[in-house]
């Protein structure tokens, strides 16, 4: 479970996140939806401890990300905004490296890596160097290393950005599977359709604040609109590039 409590962050004179609070439950896919520049990535970075909030904090399974960042990272699996790979290492070596950094080793690590290769359907690329991988293949490797320690909380920043239809479907299947296993899944997106297709709960962020928070149905009800699309426009005040 992830709880964000009054997160606030400024960069110089620019306020990136004004005040963001929400709770993401276990066994639920929570979507962080907002136009570009709304503060999604900064919010995510505060949740995964690489940006220190100026005010407020967040709890990951009860662990405070500001006070105990290392423990929080142990409980998190993250697909960050930057998902660069090492071109001279194979896909399997990527997963192993991150597994070792999480303290895994020996047979347990081997088993876990094999499991992920199976789960992400990457047997044919597992022992190839990642140089020249397609976008979809790269995301798979990035997901494998993010999930190698079997985290109960998964954060994904725009996971389907730049992917083709097949890869997008693979990512969606994975997220549903994580949900079925009872994980807390939070992903951010600026694409409404993406969020509508997957999320049980939607947190809409605009100008660094949470402007709506609820199930898709509740959102439609609150705004009195029939389609989600119009519900978003009504909440944010404009479509601001949310529609594709």
């Amino acid at each position, binding site marked *: 479970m992830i709880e964000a409590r009054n997160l606030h962050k400024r960069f110089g004179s620019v306020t990136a996140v004004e005040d963001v609070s929400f709770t993401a439950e276990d066994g639920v896919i929570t979507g962080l939806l907002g136009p570009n520049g709304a503060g999604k990535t900064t919010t995510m970075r505060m949740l995964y401890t690489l940006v220190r909030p100026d005010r407020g904090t967040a709890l990951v399974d009860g662990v405070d990300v500001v006070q105990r960042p290392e423990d929080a990272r142990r409980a998190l699996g993250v697909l960050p905004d*930057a998902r*660069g790979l090492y071109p001279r*290492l194979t896909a399997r*070596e990527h997963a192993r*490296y991150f597994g070792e*950094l999480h303290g895994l080793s020996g047979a347990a690590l081997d088993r876990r890596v094999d499991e992920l290769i199976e789960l992400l359907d990457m047997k044919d690329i597992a022992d190839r160097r990642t140089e020249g991988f397609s976008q979809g293949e790269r995301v798979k490797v990035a997901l494998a*290393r993010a999930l190698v320690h079997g985290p109960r909380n998964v954060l994904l920043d725009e996971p389907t950005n730049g992917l083709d239809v097949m890869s997008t479907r693979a990512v969606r299947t994975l997220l549903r599977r994580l949900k079925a296993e009872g994980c807390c899944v939070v992903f951010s997106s600026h694409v409404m359709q993406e969020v509508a297709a997957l999320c049980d709960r939607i947190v809409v962020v605009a100008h660094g604040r949470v402007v709506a928070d609820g199930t898709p149905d509740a959102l439609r009800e609150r705004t009195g609109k029939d389609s989600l699309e119009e519900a978003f426009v009504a909440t944010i005040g404009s479509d601001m590039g949310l529609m594709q």
Partner: protein
Amino acid sequence: MRRLAGTVFRKELRDHLRDRRSVLTALMFPLLGPVVFMVMFNLLASWYRQDRPLELPVVGREHAPSLMAFLERYGAKLVEAPEDYESRIRAGTLDAVLVVPEDYGRQFSSGHTARVQLVVDSSRQSARHSVLRAQRLLEAYAQLLGDQRLYARGIAPELAIPVRVEELDLSTPERTAAGVLNMVPLFLVLAAFAGGMQLASDTMAGERERGSLEPLLLNPAPRGAVVTGKWLATVAMAAGAVLLTLVGYLLVVRRVPLEDLGVKARFDAPAALGMAVAVLPLCLAASAVQLWVSTYARSFKEAQTYLSLLMVVPMLPGMVLALSPVQTKAWMFAVPVLGQELLAGEVMRGEPLGPLPFLIAAASSAAMSVLALRFTTRLLAQERIVFGRG
């Protein structure tokens, strides 16, 4: 912490060693020093080698038997000149030819100045040394005969020589060779910088540019462990380069005529060991500073530019030392780079040092690396460093 640093270390080294081009560059540089060394020494030796007899082709040997005997007594090897000696001299295959005219004997016996000709091509640098030796021998013969004639008439030869010019050649082969030898410590220190340079720029600036720094820092490993692992990988490359340079010198030195040049230098296994002990601790400091600079740089390219500039630092004291050796003082050992160059130089010259200078130099390098690693770890806690600055 130690295990995590080990994990990072192994990954960085494996990753880097798969980069063939940069490994090849890393291997080339350490071998550059020994190759330059070998070429310079062999050139020097071929210029100055005195024990090689002067080979002098002569036309008309039979006209001046006493001169020929003199020349041979002073080590010249006389041969019959070929017919086409003039064109051979022009082509550079002959250095000089002595021509004794037919009337030499007559002129000589009658007390006139007898003439011989030394045929040379003065535009040819490589012949200069042989020509000079031939001239000196001939002048010495003339001097000897002149002295004898004056004695025969009861006159002291000094009267005929009011002033004698003696040449004092400061550019002795020993000095020049010692200058070349002073390059050895410089190249060793340079190797400590060059060896880890590629890895240092790739492992920090490159890591961020690839977008893999953020995922890496998402692991529960302490920043210090990540920095330590990357630093140790850089140190390994630097130490490898230093050792390779030393092995290169050891191999080359057997093919170099050091004794011919009268150079007093120790280059046996114990000396090599001493130089390794002197220079290896510098790898710690050099790698730590390189890592720090690479973390600070905005991009991979910027990191490479900075690190190339950093290479100039060891060149400065090295150049000064190579040109004008200074009086070594104890505090100098505590200055990283300068200390190592001095130590390696003293070891090479076979000076007895004792362990203290080595300890001082190693301790100052270690202190410097701790400082640079602290700075690097602190940089990694800064958001603008992790996410890059536009």
